[in-house]
């Protein structure tokens, strides 16, 4: 990316206009927008401001090719671009002005980083001659976001701009995807140079799996009695659900998914046990713990998924398949590691493994399920005369298709949805798994709805989370997005309160919200429809209306503040510490 290699590198490949000599001179802002268009970008999210006036001026004349949506807050734009990327696999794009616009993106950038979501963030900055002087609305956003981006570019030279944008897209989508930031000072947006067509660069080369590693993995698998497949977000990101199923079926091995892996396997598949980890379903977590071999596919063995790492791998050998070499041996030492793309590795591995029938091992899961399911669901069902999280989730599920995208915020509601909503298609569950950012959901739902040409999207949120980004209800109304927002309203910061109940002797410090927000009026004030319900009958009536509406609808579902998420394995604990009720 040094300016020395600029024009030779990009121009040689193929200028759309073909003939040499017909050069196009554009300013930096136009080059930026044209390069986005050349990358197939049709939607961007953001908010204008002083340092991006030129970029917005160019958008103004290209509305037939690229549609910009204004959000209420740049954080909402960042989450929307992220949700757009998660729902489609395309690179999402968000824009913001310098200073506060850029800093408002930060939570969204970190969210995308921790969940490996391909998003390009474009910020304006003050002119280069004012940089470093604490000028009005100047922040070093590439510096601020260094630890939470795959890479960041500050483009000071107009001649490097086009290639930098192409490179940013390539980095965002290649290998393990992630966010890339491009900071463009205002004078660079104004300066002019030759535009070469903005053609996408080829993906970075992928490491091909090593034959001896594959053999070693196959041997471990073939000699295993009780293998367990623990699959994660990498399977979703590489669109490898079909291969995951094939491997599991050939091995007759049970599968548990990390929260980021949800949707990688249809909930209806007989080998699928459910989410595993801190709030995993008992049969998934127990088989994970009892396995003699854990096959980790596109996972990072995060603390939330493994609990105590020593006891986690006590009985089991570990095969770790991941595209990011740095994930291998980071949290857990693998016995065999396969570094590469799941799409390349699994077909080769499937060839090498022996077909098996593991009736007994699988029956064990069924036994656990039958013994435990009731004790997990029953108490809260019985205790509440009104709505329970499960009745709400199930009632919504009855009205959605398998293709409906479901977003969540962060807290108990998120875990209830992760545990109990039956996901059957990849990329239909958008949640902040790695960062756990409350306020993610509303933006993500907007992004997904727009990505899917304004289709129905559902947001499950909590009363705490919703207050963090409810401003984006205005965005949903403005763009007439058919988003059904379901608030599991327990009146508390439920997940934190649950930890206080379980681990801090019920000392409920600052987790009771005691707010008098009237959600019906709030929805109406934003131009949406609002409902409040407290029992199953009312819920069904309201949901029927909500799911026949083409506008945003907000439903305040009153649930018990004492409902808890079970099972839970206390942080740092292991499977035997699981609390069931």
């Amino acid at each position: 990316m040094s300016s020395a290699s600029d024009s030779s590198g990009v121009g040689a490949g193929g200028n759309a206009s073909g003939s040499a000599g017909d050069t196009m001179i554009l300013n930096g802002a136009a080059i930026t927008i044209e390069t986005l268009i050349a990358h197939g970008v049709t939607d961007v999210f953001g908010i204008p401001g002083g340092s991006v006036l030129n970029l917005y001026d160019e958008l103004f004349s290209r509305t037939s090719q690229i549609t910009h949506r204004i959000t209420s807050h740049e954080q909402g734009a960042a989450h929307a671009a992220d949700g757009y990327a998660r729902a489609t696999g395309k690179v999402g794009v968000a824009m913001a002005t310098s200073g506060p616009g850029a800093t408002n993106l930060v939570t969204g950038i970190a969210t995308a980083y921790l969940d490996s979501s391909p998003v390009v963030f474009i910020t304006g900055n003050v002119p280069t001659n004012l940089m470093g002087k604490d000028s009005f609305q100047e922040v070093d956003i590439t510096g601020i976001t260094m630890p939470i981006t795959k890479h960041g570019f500050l483009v000071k030279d107009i001649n490097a701009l086009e290639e930098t944008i192409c490179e940013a897209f390539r980095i965002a989508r290649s290998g393990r995807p992630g966010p890339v930031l491009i900071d463009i000072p205002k004078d660079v947006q104004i300066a002019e140079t030759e535009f070469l067509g903005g053609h996408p660069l080829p993906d970075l080369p992928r490491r091909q799996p090593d034959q001896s590693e594959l053999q070693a993995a196959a041997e471990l698998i073939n000699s295993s009695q009780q293998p367990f497949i623990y699959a994660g977000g990498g399977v979703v990101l590489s669109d490898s659900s079909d291969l995951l199923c094939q491997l599991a079926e050939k091995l007759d091995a049970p599968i548990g998914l990390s929260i980021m892996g949800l949707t990688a396997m249809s909930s209806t598949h007989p080998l699928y046990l459910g989410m595993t980890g801190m709030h995993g379903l008992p049969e998934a977590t127990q088989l994970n713990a009892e396995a003699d071999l854990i096959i980790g596919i596109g996972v990072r063995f995060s603390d939330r998924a493994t609990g105590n790492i020593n006891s986690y791998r006590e009985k089991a050998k570990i095969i770790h398949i991941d595209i990011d070499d740095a994930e291998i041996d980071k949290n857990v030492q693998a016995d065999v590691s396969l570094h590469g793309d799941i799409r390349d590795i699994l077909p080769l591995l499937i060839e090498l493994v022996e077909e098996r029938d593991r009736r007994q091992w699988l029956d064990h899961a069924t036994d656990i399920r039958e013994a435990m399911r009731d004790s997990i669901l029953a108490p809260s069902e019985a205790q509440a005369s009104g709505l329970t999280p499960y009745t709400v989730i199930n009632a919504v599920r009855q009205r959605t298709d398998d293709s409906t995208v479901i977003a969540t915020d962060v807290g108990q509601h998120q875990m209830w949805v992760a545990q109990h909503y039956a996901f059957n298609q990849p990329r239909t569950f958008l949640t902040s798994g790695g960062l756990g950012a409350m306020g993610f959901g509303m933006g993500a739902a907007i992004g997904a709805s727009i990505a899917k040409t304004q289709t129905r999207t559902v947001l499950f949120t909590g009363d705490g989370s919703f207050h963090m980004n409810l401003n984006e209800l205005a965005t949903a109304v403005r763009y007439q997005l058919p988003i059904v927002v379901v608030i599991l309203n327990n009146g508390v910061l439920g997940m934190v309160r649950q930890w206080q109940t379980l681990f801090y002797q019920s000392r409920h410090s600052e987790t009771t919200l005691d707010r008098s927000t009237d959600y019906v009026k709030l929805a109406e004030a934003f131009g949406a429809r609002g409902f409040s319900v407290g029992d199953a009958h009312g819920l069904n009536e309201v949901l029927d209306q909500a799911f026949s509406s083409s506008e945003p609808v907000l439903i305040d579902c009153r649930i018990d503040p004492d409902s808890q998420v079970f099972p839970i394995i206390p942080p740092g604990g292991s499977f035997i510490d699981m609390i069931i009720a």
Partner: protein
Amino acid sequence: MNQPTQISNFTLSILVANRAGALSRITGLFSKRGFNIDTLSVGPMAEDPSLSRLIMTSSGDEVTKNQIIKQLAKLYDVVDVKLI
């Protein structure tokens, strides 16, 4: 089952693209992940001024050492990492 956790000192030779922010990205990686930098020297490559050579000494157990190398290799600015 655990890898040897003995701490050792080691020296890395890191080839880096000579771009703005490259050095802070490298040192930032060390602070972000809690790795040690014991000594560090940087200079341009005589043969190719678009590259710089970093010689760094660090310390940690085997797992940390491997993590440092892999995390460095992942950085966009880093062209090559070698243990010397």
